[in-house]
């Protein structure tokens, strides 16, 4: 199974990287610079939050780095693999083997039950699951007794936790989460963030999370601020209030 996966983790300490990334939409007067020359390294084993006003390019940054979208110019890497040089098929493989996702909504395949949804990336790749790890993650996320349920039988918070479990159980090189708590109540989002935090602390999982919520960003090791497609600021282990103030300043 290891033979299938591209040799991604060769450089220790670096999970992903973007170099002078630009992503333009439209042309002429309608041109929008969603990403306007972003360069950044994301060290492994850290929980990074990306914040910024609506339309600042957060989702675009994440999608380009995750191999869901392509840069107009510039380069991105997952580990040592330069995605910008790969074919669609190869990128799919990288996503399958090295990347985990948690989206804001609609994270689960409705025909599969929770267990199958969690196993989906592993099953697609034909990889075996680490059963102990699986049990631990699903227990921590309090979904171990919901594994046989279909998504339609789960609450919104449970669905997000199943999605998180899917990302975490596969132990990808990096997890991208785009407003994963956007549709959750405060208790559910706190639980989800706790588990993400735990994965970083206990297993050195790398997570990149977009959020609007300073309360969520507070759980991150580092908060990066984006505006008009550029990184404008960053904060190490910030307090909620500090983030709040910074956001205020940007508006």
């Amino acid at each position, binding site marked *: 199974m290891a033979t299938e996966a591209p040799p991604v983790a060769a450089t220790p300490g670096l999970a992903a990287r973007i170099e002078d990334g630009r992503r333009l939409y439209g042309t002429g007067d309608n041109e929008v610079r969603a990403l306007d020359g972003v360069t950044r390294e994301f060290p492994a084993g850290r929980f990074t939050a990306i914040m910024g006003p609506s339309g600042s390019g957060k989702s675009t940054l994440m999608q380009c780095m995750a191999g869901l979208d392509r840069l107009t110019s510039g380069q991105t890497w997952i580990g040592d693999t330069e995605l910008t040089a790969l074919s669609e098929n190869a990128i799919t493989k990288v996503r399958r083997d090295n990347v985990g996702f948690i989206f804001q909504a609609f994270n689960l395949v*409705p025909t599969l039950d929770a267990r199958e949804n969690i196993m989906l990336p592993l099953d697609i790749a034909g990889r075996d699951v680490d059963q102990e790890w699986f049990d631990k993650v699903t227990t921590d996320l309090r979904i171990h007794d919901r594994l046989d349920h279909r998504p339609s039988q789960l609450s919104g918070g449970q669905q997000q936790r199943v999605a998180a479990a899917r990302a975490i159980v596969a132990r990808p090189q990096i997890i991208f989460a785009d407003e994963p708590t956007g549709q959750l109540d405060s208790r559910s989002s706190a639980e989800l963030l706790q588990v993400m935090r735990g994965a970083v602390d206990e297993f050195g999982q790398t997570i990149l999370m977009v959020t609007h919520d300073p309360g969520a960003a507070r759980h991150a090791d580092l908060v990066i601020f984006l505006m008009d497609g550029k990184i404008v600021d960053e904060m190490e282990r910030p307090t909620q209030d500090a983030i709040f103030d910074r956001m205020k300043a940007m508006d």
Partner: protein
Amino acid sequence: MVFKQARRNLLSNKLRLFLTSLAVVLGVGFVTGSIVLADTINKSFSNIFNVENSQSAVQVRGKAVVSESDRKPVPADVLEKVRRVPGVRAAEGTILGQAQVVDAEGKAVGGGGAPTMGFNWYDGPTNPMQMVEGNPPRENNEVVLDTETAKKAGVPVGGEVTVVTDVGPAKYRLSGTAKFGKTGQAGGATLAFFTLDTAKRVFTSSGRFATLDVAADPGVSDTKLAADVQKVLPAGFEAVTATQANEEVANQFQSFIDIFRNVLLVFAGIALFVGAFIIFNAFQITIAQRGRQIGLLRAQGASSRQIMGSVILEALMVGIVASLLGVAFGIVVAWALQQLFNAVGADLPDQSLVITTGAIISGLIVGILVTLLSAVGPAYRSSRVSPMSALHPAPVGPTSRWRIALAIAMAVAGVAMVLWGTFGDMDTAPRSTLLALGSIILFFGAAALTQYVASPLANGIGRLFGPRGGRMPLRLGRRNAMRHPHRTAQTAAALTIGVALVTAVSIFASSLHKTFVGSIEDRLHADVVAFAQGSGGFTVAADDVVLKVPQITDVLVSRTAAFRDEKGAQWVSGVVPDRVDEVYDAGVEEGSLGDLASPDTVAVSRDRADSMNLKVGSMLPMTFASTGEKPRRVVAIFKDSTFGNYFMSNEQIDANSTQLRNQGIFAKAAPGVSPDEAKEAVKKALASFPSVEVYTRQGYIDLIGNQVNQLLAMFYLLLAMAIFIAVFGIILTLALSVFERTREIGLLRAVGLSRRGTRAMIRWEAVIVALIGALVGLVVGTFLGVVAVKAFPDLTAIGIPWLSMIAFVIVAALFGVLAAILPARRAAKLNVLEAIASE
């Protein structure tokens, strides 16, 4: 508001519009095509019967005591009497016989279904022929052929041509060519004209005429003349106006064309029925997909009637546009069918397509009605969508008990109606209505029941391909097929219909094959058999030749004649009483075929004997055209009806029939001669009778098998359209599902399902749906096929074509793969980001 909504919905998904329309277009095309083709054939033949250059006013003929085509010939002295009737300008008698024209290579010209006819030539106003080149036959060794036949035979005027008549082959000088009626076409028939003397000599009519044609003096009306001529006729003959006679022929032909057209229409109806399933399904799915949107409209105050109206209107628009296209396509279908029938040797006369307003209007009405009817259910459903669905898309409700009960009731009612229609005692019209209705209800019931087994079936089939769930795409495909059982069932149902009919037909054919080949293998002891191409039989002149072949013994030349008994017009086959048992075991149960040597005797099959309550020694009244009614003693009752239900001695047949024709030759190889040698010897001896085909016993068995297969192939072809449409139905459902699952597919792609895996997932779903359709179709088809076989007492064996049935399943799976190509490509091409972002 309603109209705008309907139009916007229509255009919102062009693929759906295209595929639903296609189902209507194909169905309507087939319907219109059938009507146009029938009209065209009709027109071309009515041109032929429209004999404008004949001035014949009245026709004299024997009364139709047996059938329209088998009448008592008119004796020569009647012609003299008719000529003396005041008002008769001219009267001529037509001698009619079979004349096979042979080309330079010794091959038969024409034939193969179309008649090969010989006449006496006469001059005068009643002759429907027009000389084209050369002169009418004046010498007894001269002949005139129709231009087409002369061309096919490759003889120039003045050249020599061989014609086989009742006295055998002879060479004639082609004195000229002529054309028939206005168009010169005779529907593939070959026409040969001799002098009166020659005609009398070469045809077994003993100088009697088939008909007399009478022309009127100026000022004498046809009806008046007919009445006057009637007065001088002996009993058993009638004088009718030529117009009436022509109309009768045309009507007879018309009823044949009607049968042909109705058969085509049945298949067109099947195609349309399948199309209706697809339209229904398409509307059902889109309304489910639009649940939210409809809920929103309702929440904003749209009434349920407005919602229903917009769906109906949408269907109406689809129906009108697609039916218009369908009618246009129908013309193409008619043309293609015309070419197809010609390619298999039907030799339809040249005629540009006849497109009547009736055909166009029928196509339009049928198409629009079917579309509307298919949309009524979904439209009603849409009107039931509550305003709440804007907030919570309603989950598929649990299946209520009475729905299952209804499905079972429909299936049972369908089965009962089919059984009743098959075995009940009734007329053709109510019987066919009952059968058609029963089959339709049965299909609806089967489709409705499929809903409840679709999930377990999909599960089972999916697991067959991957024992422990298989790889991810298979697993996802299986789950998708299980996801909306009613949708899966309806999609599969379209294919079910096709597979069921194909299965039924192949069971029927296989039983036909088994029965006939089986009884021939068991009962035919002849080593050599000979038959003519087509149904016209062949000349009795062949007898002498065959009887002299030393390589064969126990030669039985079988004659045939038409007669009428209480059951209607029948055929009796002639045998040589003391020889028949040597070559053919009829399975005599009572009496003996040897007793047929006594005068006025007949042997009857068990089936007929039972239905007419006959035993050995009973008297059976039989009416022949030339000799009238006479009771005949039943001397034997036999089981096997392969070669007919009635046997008489050849002598008896010769004494009673209007035209002596041979039906077949049966013989054993002489001691020490192999069947092949015997066959070759007979073939060589009959070389100058090119319409006769000689077979060994095995060759004959193979021939029957091939004929059954050809029949089967034709049915397959006619059902192909229905299956074709069903495949479109699968494409449509898949495409709609892909559209519906855009986000889900995006998600799968995001977490690493490759494009290839995505395609495989869709493909598996299609294969599973197709297999469900095929399996249910096999079950329904086996039922229908077995019932159909049971309906024919002549079919004594039931053949279940296992190999074909397995092949159907495989082909169905392949159709699934085929149907998945486009939707799968669409799914694989989805832009992951947009898919995830889509609402």
